[in-house]
């Protein structure tokens, strides 16, 4: 049977609205299609933990099913979970959030990103988004009718936004600043001084600071610092967090937002129409994660920490210079010494050595000249991937006439 892919009736108006039609496809998507068509690929392109959710957390989810807890929860999510979150925030930031009015459980932190933009933005309003950054932020600003204004972050400044760049980016239409530290894709974290500087910028300009801190428990140097630990910025702060990364629960799709009651109430309004409530089973599992998951989070963090040292040591040694990541599980080396663009580097590395990395340009224009390597992969796989990357870099150095780095010796 022949199936027509054309619409049944010819209408003058395109079926897909202009905003969506114009939205660039994710740079990652294109690369993903290339990777899945191949065999034997070692992937450093994965943006999720390689650990399975700790078993006691899975058990809590299974138990909730066995107990017949299969119906909706309240729109905001289980009160028991919101109370656990309030305790968690108080323990990690020193500040108390009201579980009834100031916390909303969402389907991943991603839903919360979407909700806050739809809550804040009038058509034409601007949101300052750092570049490079997670792919969803600028796209969701656009879908909410806003305009993402990108500001460059560079390794010279530890991939943190500089005050002068922020001041230059702000306009009468600026409503919010979207940040994500520890950062995907750069692995950068902010110092206490940087956090205070940004808080000052936000309050002075009366903006909303949206801080996606999903990687905060995966901080490797010094204590993790949340924007929520600064009382001065509290009324301007919407904190986004979730269970995916630190608790290895990506597939459970569970995150949360904490912020001022007026914004949380507005977000909840959209959420109740669009989502109803996050998955009940996942919420029960998350209660267990917060109650008893600390030990596993710490042992996963320790494992990432060791791999982080390993991968950045070897990348730097082979001439792909990188800042030592301070958080998350990504390293963002410069590939400029190879003379290749990010896209070329990633495609040829895949083609010639079967290693997948994500071109930096997937995260914004400023990602040109960089690639993102995830170290949420076993040490054995990292070792082999690094061996192949070094061979690739050596090939391409010699063709561009630069001096070869010392050969990779298995230490």
């Amino acid at each position, binding site marked *: 049977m022949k199936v027509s892919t054309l619409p049944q009736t010819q209408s003058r108006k395109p079926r897909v609205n202009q905003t969506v039609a114009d939205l660039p496809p*994710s740079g*990652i998507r294109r*690369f*993903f299609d290339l*990777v*899945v068509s191949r065999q034997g*690929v070692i*992937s450093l*392109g*994965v*943006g*999720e933990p*390689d650990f*399975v959710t700790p078993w006691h957390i899975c058990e809590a989810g299974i138990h909730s099913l066995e107990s017949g807890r299969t119906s909706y929860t309240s729109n905001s999510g289980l009160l028991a979970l919101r109370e656990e979150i309030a305790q968690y925030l108080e323990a990690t930031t020193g500040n108390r959030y009201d579980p009834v009015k100031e916390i909303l459980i969402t389907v991943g932190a991603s839903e919360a990103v979407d909700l806050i933009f739809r809550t804040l933005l009038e058509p034409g309003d601007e949101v300052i988004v750092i570049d490079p950054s*997670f*792919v*969803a932020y600028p796209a969701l600003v656009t879908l909410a009718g806003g305009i993402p204004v990108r500001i460059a972050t560079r390794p010279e400044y530890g991939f943190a936004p500089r005050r002068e760049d922020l001041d230059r980016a702000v306009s009468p239409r600026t409503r919010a600043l979207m940040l994500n530290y520890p950062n*995907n894709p750069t692995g950068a974290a902010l110092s206490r001084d940087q956090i205070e500087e940004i808080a000052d910028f936000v309050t002075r300009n009366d903006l909303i600071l949206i801080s996606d801190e999903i990687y905060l428990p995966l901080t490797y140097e010094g204590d993790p610092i949340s924007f929520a630990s600064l009382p001065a910025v509290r009324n301007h702060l919407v904190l986004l967090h979730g269970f995916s990364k630190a608790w290895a629960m990506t597939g459970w799709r569970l995150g949360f937002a904490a912020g001022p009651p007026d914004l949380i109430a507005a977000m909840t309004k959209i959420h109740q129409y669009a989502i109803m409530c996050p998955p009940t089973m996942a919420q029960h599992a998350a209660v267990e994660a917060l109650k008893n998951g600390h030990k596993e989070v710490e042992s996963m963090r320790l494992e990432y920490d*060791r*791999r982080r*040292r*390993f991968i950045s*040591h*070897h990348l730097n040694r082979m001439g792909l210079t990188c800042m030592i990541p301070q958080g998350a599980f990504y390293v963002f080396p410069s590939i400029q010494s190879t003379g290749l663009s990010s896209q070329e580097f990633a495609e040829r590395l895949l083609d010639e050595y079967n290693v*997948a990395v*994500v071109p930096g340009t*997937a995260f914004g224009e400023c990602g040109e000249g960089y690639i993102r390597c995830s170290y949420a992969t076993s*040490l*054995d796989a990292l070792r082999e991937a690094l061996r192949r990357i070094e061979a690739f870099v050596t090939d391409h150095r010699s063709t561009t006439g630069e001096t070869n780095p010392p050969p990779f010796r*298995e*230490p």
Partner: protein
Amino acid sequence: MISSIRKKILEVLEKDARLTPREAAILLSEDENLVAGEIAAMEAEGIILGYKTIVNPERVRDDKVACLIEVSVQPERGHGFDKIAERIYRFPEVRSVYLVSGGYDLLIVIEGQSLREIADFVIEKLSVLPNVRSTASHFLLKKYKELGTILVESDGQERIPVSP
């Protein structure tokens, strides 16, 4: 008390015994010579006894037979259970010996080529020891997990190879 650097070295080596001192030093952000020295010292002091490969017996199918034996013994004045335990653990076919609380005293794990071989051991070597009062043998039918490693095949989780 074991020093913190030694503890950290043992943690990474217990996960992967093939790590070279240099790799371990990179993982731990420590000096390579210091790590190499500590490993050598721990080997000399008997803290590190050896390096083994974890083989999945379910995949090798060597038809060996294993048996867990509960042994009740008469402890001896001045030696407690140590002497009788030694007389048992000296047998090379005995893989493990534990002194346990509860309904019996020693739990031993023995491996042999056949049921006959294990029966011979129990009848001729173990039961006849003067301090052994009784034994109860449990033949091992399947290993699910050993030394922290899960041995049964699992579908595992398939992560999508590239994600944002």
